């Protein structure tokens, strides 16, 4: 079996899409917040909270739809919390975001013990024991497409939320560039004083972008605990909320760029899993996605600098 046949299998491309989806949710959340001039670094914690409540309510209600809705609502509530502390009480928003991340890690463990009364024994805390596949977000086999060889295997059979993630990239783009509210969001992000001088409520817009970010992060959390894994477990988001911040920077703060960056990250992680299969040391394999992120950021910075230089050159030669 040759190298390419070994690496580039149908499962490989399928896993890229699966790995990318939760990062897309978080990246879109970060992008829309950034466009509105809000640095929301609390996405990791927001996703943890949503993952927990999504899976718990799926269990209590017996319905994954309720779980996803509760995950979204949780995302909104957590984001409102950040907004309230940052804009009404004038906390530094980076601190508010950091607090949410810490709550997402330690607070969720506390909550799951209080709510379910589970004891951990020697096991780490999780809701794995409550969730069956019936409570998971369903997988969709797309008719016709699924019968096409190779492409069908890669594109069909993903969860509802995976497809939604990719659709949301275009919806986010449309929201930002094709709607009046998108214009307001961008103007507040570019220059809040100017926006406010023409009667745009800056604080309302900032609340709005955080709420939209909360919805997106909520979906990301639901993806983690209700499709990717069966149930919530301690620290399960495992840095995806932070990767999204890097992907946002890499993608130039644009939805399509963010999608590309998330896909590059997904590719890198899928590749690192293949690399572990051929016996490369695990300590070298696990940083691959982060290495790719750094390289991506460097490339982006160089491209941006070249772009900035060009007009000057034209002037000089003229």
């Amino acid at each position, binding site marked *: 079996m040759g190298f390419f046949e*070994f690496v580039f299998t149908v499962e490989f491309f399928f896993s890229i899409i699966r790995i990318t989806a939760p990062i897309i949710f978080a990246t879109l959340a970060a992008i829309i917040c950034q466009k509105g001039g809000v640095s929301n670094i609390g996405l990791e914690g927001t996703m943890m909270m949503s993952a927990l409540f999504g899976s718990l309510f799926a269990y209590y209600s017996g319905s994954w739809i309720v779980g996803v809705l509760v995950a979204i609502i949780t995302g909104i509530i957590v984001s409102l919390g950040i907004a309230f502390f940052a804009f009404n009480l004038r906390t530094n928003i980076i601190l508010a975001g950091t607090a949410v991340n810490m709550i997402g890690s330690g607070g969720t463990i506390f909550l799951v013990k209080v709510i379910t009364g589970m004891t951990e024994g020697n096991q780490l805390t999780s809701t794995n024991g409550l969730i069956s596949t019936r409570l998971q977000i369903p997988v969709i086999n797309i008719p016709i497409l699924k019968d096409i060889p190779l492409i069908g295997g890669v594109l069909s059979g993903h969860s509802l939320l995976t497809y939604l993630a990719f659709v949301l990239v275009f919806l986010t783009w449309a929201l930002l560039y094709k709607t009046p509210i998108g214009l307001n969001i961008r103007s507040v992000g570019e220059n809040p004083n100017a926006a406010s001088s023409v009667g745009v409520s800056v604080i309302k817009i900032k609340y709005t972008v955080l709420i939209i970010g909360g919805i997106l992060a909520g979906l990301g959390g639901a993806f983690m605990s209700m499709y990717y894994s069966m149930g919530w477990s301690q620290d399960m988001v495992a840095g995806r909320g932070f990767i999204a911040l890097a992907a946002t920077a890499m993608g130039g703060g644009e939805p399509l760029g963010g999608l590309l960056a998330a896909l590059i990250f997904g590719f890198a992680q899928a590749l690192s899993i293949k690399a572990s299969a051929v016996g490369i040391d695990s300590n070298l394999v*696990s940083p691959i996605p982060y290495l790719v992120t750094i390289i991506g950021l460097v490339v982006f910075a160089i491209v941006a600098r070249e772009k900035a230089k060009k007009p000057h050159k034209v002037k000089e030669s003229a």
Partner: protein
Amino acid sequence: MKKIMKLILALILSVSLVACGGGGSDEGGAGSSEGGEGAYNVAYLVNGNLGDKSFFDSAKAGLDQLEADGRINLKTIEMGGTDSDKPKWESILYEVSDSGEYDYIIVGTFQMPDFLKAAATDYPDQKYIIFDDNTYVGNNDNVLNLMYKQNELGYVLGVLAGGITTDTSVANINEDAVIGFVGGQDSPVINDFLIGYIEGALSVNPDIKIDTRYTNDFVDTAKSKEFALSMMNDKKADIIWGVAGNAGNGAAEAVLETNNAWFIGVDSDQEQTFIDELAAITLTSGLKNIGNSLIWVFDEIDAGNDDFWGTEIALGLAENGVGIVDDKNYDAVVPDSVKELVAEAIKAVQDGSVEVSTAFGPNKVDVAEIRDSVRP
């Protein structure tokens, strides 16, 4: 804006009320019963609740047996496992130590050593036993640390996996002699499980390949799921042992998704802790038999061999300190020929004719080299 503020404040209030209301899982002491004359008085402090189907229940079962045999008088105190219960742990430990009523006080898990160290220092005449922890071994002469030989556990599971992986008459098993291991970290403790697993598998099939992956954390279930999927898709592994805390469960989920392999659990009987669907694809679990180890301790005490205070004792197959789940799926799925192999392997380790290598201590072997030599 005022309205929104009010709403949020109300929300925060109600959330905190709910949190307070839910936390009332107060556990009092469980009853003690009259034992035989001359029996030891033993207090078992559970830093959680019974019913965990894991360490706490295992310890309780062993102690119940000792009590039923009239060897101890047992007092079990469930101290609760939530964060709000934690402050109680130390005070209960002190109270029980201070009462002077107990010959032995038993605690367990990685959450207790700090409290125990303090209490053991303040009550030097009180004897304490702590299971599955060796943080402060040797620090106090009145504490016994019980540990468990994971390499011997790995050996038995390796024999099982190696014996079954080419037996296509078993459901979900393919003809390739490849088995998998998802570890949490490339660290001595995890590699101790692994080295036994490799040696056990090689002992029944010298040509077997073992696909080892490390998730590099114990929490990323999704990552360990991807690793397990890659093992099955790329390497045709059909037995996967997950030794990565919660992340290990991701491997079980991967097996459930593809349905062409078996998962092996660790530490507790995961067929009992998993939901039915995951339990159905779990072949067996490697166990630390806390209960048996406590019985062993009292056997030694009665035999006058209790010079182990202030040290760490690692219990293996010979002392019944480790073992595998041999009912449920194991009983139903594993062919008799393989069961025989497993029984022989256990016996061989018990009588010392097989010595399993270890990944730490003075006699440690080069796990990385062995791991690479059996890579598929």
